[in-house]
């Protein structure tokens, strides 16, 4: 994400101009996109490729806890897990980031000090985004002040669906500014945007407003991440780089629970945006229970026998 800070958000267009631009993007045929995603999901990733994919997936996990019942103890446990996912095997890579609510950032920052693991905080009145702008910015600024290196903001879906793209744009720009050096992930909540045309428009809107990452979902709305939605977003970041030279990352989040799921996402990245995105710098998987399944499959590959949940920590 190195150059993200230098990128100027594009000259703010007027509402009608922004609208004309977004509505001028090529449409997405839902059936065709679903078909393409489903077909890529039939890729058979075996043996050495699977081993490679599992380690890559582990390193891309934004290990997440976003519960009302979160406590410092819970967050510390998660941080420990993220740094050493499988205590019995030091060869297992650490995760990309730990993702928590803003009030848990300080705890996480302390627990993760020196690990190189990112501290991601949701912000802007997550998950609904229904709060005054001042509150959203304060939310962001405080998380950053407490040590967040990544901010996962939600867009105002109401404004988006009402066609007030300029408002969404301005919010992203403002939050980006509040992020300072922290990287900004923009969550669309695609389950509420519903159509792939909207997902494509939201992707371009966010990228033009300065997003470092675009992210599917909060995990609080069903459906959360899906393969076709992620496909559309990957096409968007691919095309955006083509046009501007700037890379934007993608993060599907929510509903990714198995190794099989994770591998499908990696195939999607590989064959859509391309191998440049196959790094934790540009692709993340927002998940919680996924990590243990990845570890279990990793064990199966290395030992040749199926493992069981008792051999992996529940954190």
């Amino acid at each position: 994400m190195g150059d993200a800070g230098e990128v100027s958000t594009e000259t703010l267009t007027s509402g009608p101009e922004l609208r004309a631009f977004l509505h001028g993007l090529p449409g997405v045929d839902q059936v065709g996109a679903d078909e393409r995603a489903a077909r890529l999901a039939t890729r058979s990733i075996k043996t050495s490729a699977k081993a490679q994919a599992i380690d890559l997936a582990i390193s891309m996990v934004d290990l997440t806890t976003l519960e009302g019942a979160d406590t410092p103890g819970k967050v510390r446990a998660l941080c420990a897990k993220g740094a050493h996912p499988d205590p019995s095997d030091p060869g297992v890579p650490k995760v990309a980031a730990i993702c928590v609510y803003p009030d848990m950032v300080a705890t996480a920052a302390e627990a993760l000090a020196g690990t190189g693991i990112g501290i991601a905080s949701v912000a802007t009145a997550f998950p609904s985004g229904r709060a005054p702008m001042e509150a959203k910015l304060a939310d962001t600024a405080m998380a950053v002040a407490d040590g967040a290196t990544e901010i996962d903001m939600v867009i105002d879906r109401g404004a988006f669906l009402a066609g007030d793209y300029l408002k969404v744009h301005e919010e992203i720009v403002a939050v980006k500014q509040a992020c300072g050096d922290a990287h900004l992930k923009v969550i669309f909540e695609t389950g509420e945007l519903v159509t792939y045309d909207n997902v494509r428009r939201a992707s371009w809107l966010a990228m033009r407003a300065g997003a470092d990452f675009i992210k599917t979902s909060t995990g609080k709305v069903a459906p959360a991440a899906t393969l076709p939605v992620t496909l559309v977003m990957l096409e968007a970041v691919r095309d955006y780089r083509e046009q501007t030279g700037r890379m934007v990352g993608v993060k599907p989040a929510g509903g990714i629970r198995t190794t099989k799921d994770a591998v499908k996402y990696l195939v999607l990245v590989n064959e859509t945006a391309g191998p440049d995105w196959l790094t934790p710098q540009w692709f993340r998987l927002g998940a919680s229970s996924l990590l243990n399944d990845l570890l279990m499959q990793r064990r199966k590959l290395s030992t040749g026998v199926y493992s069981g949940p008792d051999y992996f920590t529940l954190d």
Partner: protein
Amino acid sequence: MDFEYAPAPESRSVVDIRPSYGLFVGGEFTGGHGEPFKSIDPSNEETLAEIATADEADVDRAVKAARTAFEKVWGPMPGRERAKYLYRIARIIQERSRELAVLESIDNGKPIRESRDVDLPLVAAHFFYYAGWADKLGHAGFGGDPRPLGVAGQVIPWNFPLLMLAWKIAPALACGNTVVLKPAETTPLTALVFADICRQAELPPGVVNIVTGAGETGRLLVGHPGIDKIAFTGSTEVGKQIARTVAGTGKRVTLELGGKAANVVFDDAPLDQAVEGIVNGIFFNQGHVCCAGSRLLVQESVAEELLARLKARMATLRVGDPLDKNTDVGAINSAEQLAKIRELSQAGEAEGAGRWSPPCELPQRGFWFAPTLFTGVAQSHRIAREEIFGPVLSVLTFRTPAEAVEKANNTPFGLSAGVWTEKGSRILWMAERLRAGVVWANTFNKFDPASPFGGYKESGFGREGGRHGLEAYLDV
């Protein structure tokens, strides 16, 4: 980072290829009296089995067996009983689908992903669909009690061996006909397993007869006086020969022949899906598809952008071992077909079109051709007019909808066409004007037993699939 997919071969252990195969006549496997031939694996040129050739006497035997079965058993049988036999066959196909898919890929060279996910599900679906018609023919719009024609002689191609068998046999049997079917000489194996399936289903002897051999066997079958109906899928050239052969005989004929489909992309198309549709249109089954979208007609205003995306997408196509589950493009079916593809591609270059293929390592042995596109193609080029029947796309441009229609229709063929635009009224406007039997709008190469398929003009006549497909096998 590079993400290399490790080899993921489908197991061959589900198939048991015998060293030699005979004909299937009157419910028995029997020898043939012609010179036997070999069926090879086009991905490595290894011999798979030796196959009997039916000579004149063998064909005669098969036609007689079919006639007897028609008169004594199948013709008089109530439709509901015929239906149950067809349902049985459909179920057995599902049960043996992996075996059939692997065998199809070995014999044909097509990727296992396609034989597994496209061919075999459609084969079973076709039998299920027509099974249900067998006792409802009086409701199909052809009169209260439409009668079968008798014995159908059916000759099928090598591009979708088992699927074309299903398209031929299922409606024929549902309508009360019996059949003598000749599979293509390069892909006879799944038809012979199908013969075994007929036995497992306890289909009465003689209802289905399979005669193997090359073109000569086909000629004998088509010219046999005991045949009431001829159904052929293959080249336009052979289709014309057949039409001449049966001239004046009163035999009923349906022909599914060649094509040179235009896939028309407007500047407001859903571009990423259009790219997928173009790829699926021409690289599906190595382009060995009569309805392949072999002419890309792209609106000039979006041509550059579309081609860039198309090339990037083509670069991700995985060409190689048909049995690898990740293979997108398999082997060319035969040396002969490969030579034809090469010859026409060279003609394209010689005529001045720009040839492009993604970097692509092809196996040393076997018959292979990299996915290829030609830009700057003119309507007058051979590669814009002749059916290549391979993974070769000719790209042309147009400026207005009327020009797109004019170019799309400017061919003696008329099997299929594609239209890509987000504008509904334009889709219908185009669909009305395209002279083709199948128009895929915002999709391509979709097939379904309920959907009639067949061509205009020199792409043949008659329809297969759906209620319309019954007409080919009823005396109406």
